[in-house]
């Protein structure tokens, strides 16, 4: 067991994946409660072209530089999606699905362009597709810890206001809350989580990191505080199992491994959850 903590790779991978899982679970809770999980999915897919463009422009693979590209691309996609959704007679869900696949298509094309350049430094960008926890560096761990930690701290401080704005937006406005500020804050935090997460789980599956933990946690509690804590816990457990499997099977893609463990948690919760689980509901109904 001591080897776990002294081995550089083991420690980075475990620490990074666990923190990422916990933070994503907490940060995804409000978007899920606001039924905006798909927005997160669209933004995550849209970061791929951003990462590729950042690399093409700077020719460096420095993680912070690529993250800036990811954040800009996520913001652009968010603006585009909101604009399309404001067009009458376009179903919001379909608009998101369309924007998501378009952005991803662009990303894959750009990835092809990047890989055909002679610069040998491009090797490894494809890890943003499926993620690769076994390659987490200590630099990434610091980024995940600081960005994620700060975001979670912000959410914790404003939980009552966010709850009010989500539960009863009309009343919230009469209390002087500006709804656009709060949804903007939530989007910003979600983009932050996506930017730090895509290197580990990949752009395709990042949204599951945001959605699955709180979806699972909601089956166990009808109170917001416990829901946030539980979502963080489930996220951490998913991250841990994903990281471990990526270490046991060196070529196993981390993103899918984390997402699969989260989904197992979600399915178990839906079946057995104390608050809304199917079995309990059935027993209560009988």
């Amino acid at each position, binding site marked *: 067991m001591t080897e776990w903590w002294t081995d550089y790779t083991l420690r980075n991978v475990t620490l990074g994946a666990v923190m990422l899982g916990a933070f994503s679970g907490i940060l995804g809770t409000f978007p899920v*409660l606001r039924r905006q999980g798909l927005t997160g999915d669209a933004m995550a897919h849209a970061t791929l072209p951003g990462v590729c463009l950042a690399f093409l422009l700077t020719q460096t693979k420095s993680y912070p530089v690529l993250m800036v590209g990811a954040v800009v691309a996520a913001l652009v996609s968010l603006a585009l999606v909101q604009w399309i959704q404001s067009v009458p007679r376009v179903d919001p869900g379909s608009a998101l699905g369309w924007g998501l696949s378009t952005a991803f298509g662009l990303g894959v094309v750009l990835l092809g362009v990047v890989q055909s350049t002679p610069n040998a430094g491009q090797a490894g960008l494809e890890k943003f597709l499926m993620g690769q926890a076994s390659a987490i560096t200590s630099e990434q761990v610091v980024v995940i810890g600081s960005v994620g930690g700060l975001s979670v701290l912000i959410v914790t*401080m*404003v939980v*009552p*206001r966010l*709850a*009010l704005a*989500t*539960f*009863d*937006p*009309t*009343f919230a*406005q*009469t*209390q*002087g809350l500006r709804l656009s500020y709060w949804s903007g804050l939530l989007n910003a935090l979600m983009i932050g989580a996506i930017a730090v997460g895509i290197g580990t789980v990949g752009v395709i599956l990042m949204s599951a990191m945001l959605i699955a933990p709180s979806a699972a946690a*909601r089956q166990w*509690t*009808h*109170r*917001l505080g416990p*829901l946030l804590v539980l979502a963080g816990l489930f996220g951490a457990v998913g991250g841990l199992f994903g990281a471990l499997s990526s270490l046991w099977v060196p070529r196993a893609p981390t993103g899918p491994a984390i997402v699969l463990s989260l989904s197992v948690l979600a399915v178990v919760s839906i079946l057995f959850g104390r*608050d809304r689980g199917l079995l309990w509901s059935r027993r209560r109904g009988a």
Partner: protein
Amino acid sequence: MISPALSVSDLTVSYGENLALWDVDLQIEAGCLAALVGPNGAGKSTLLKAALELIPRVTGTAVFFGQPLARARQGIAYVPQRSAVDWEFPVTVLDVALMGSYGRLGWLKRPRRTDRDQAVSCLQRVGIADLAHRHISELSGGQQQRVFLARALLQGADLYLMDEPFTGVDAATESTLIETMRSLRSEGKTVIVVHHDLQTVPEYFDEVVLLNREVVAQGPTGSVFTAENLQTTYGGKLALLTP
């Protein structure tokens, strides 16, 4: 002289090209129970929302106790229609009642023990303290309406604006609601209610505003709530209900 609790002048509101309210002027004196009455689509809820700046106005002003909304906000409690909230949201009855304390809490502050105790006593006042730890969606329509009244009570406001509180509630809740409103009035508070049931208007309310996009009549119930005025407000559709 005391300023009216609510004074609206020249208020015009439109949804797209549809005029919802046209040149509305009205005054509600402080310390009374007032009803906004009119047919569906008459703009009753719209009037409350426009006064509270929840929807944009074309023209007009709303003044509360002689002050603009920004300065009067603390003294106003708004009870939205029940359909306006997210019933799936993870909150208990007590959590919802506690939201009434957020307006006076500082930016990053959380409700304290004393706020919780006050919230519980507000729930007691409307007779549902025993449901405090239930999820909000487990309650009946009438019980849910009581939770929102408790939240408004916790605000400790001087003016209560309620959007159709009596719609779809049981008889016990209706009498709890009206008793609570009467006790608020006896404390000198003002209550303005969007109301549908014409039968109960004379019994419940001191003042009435008859509205159908424009103000048809306003004033003390005894002099305003007449068959003739109702006929004008509702058009020809009211033969059976006139008092």
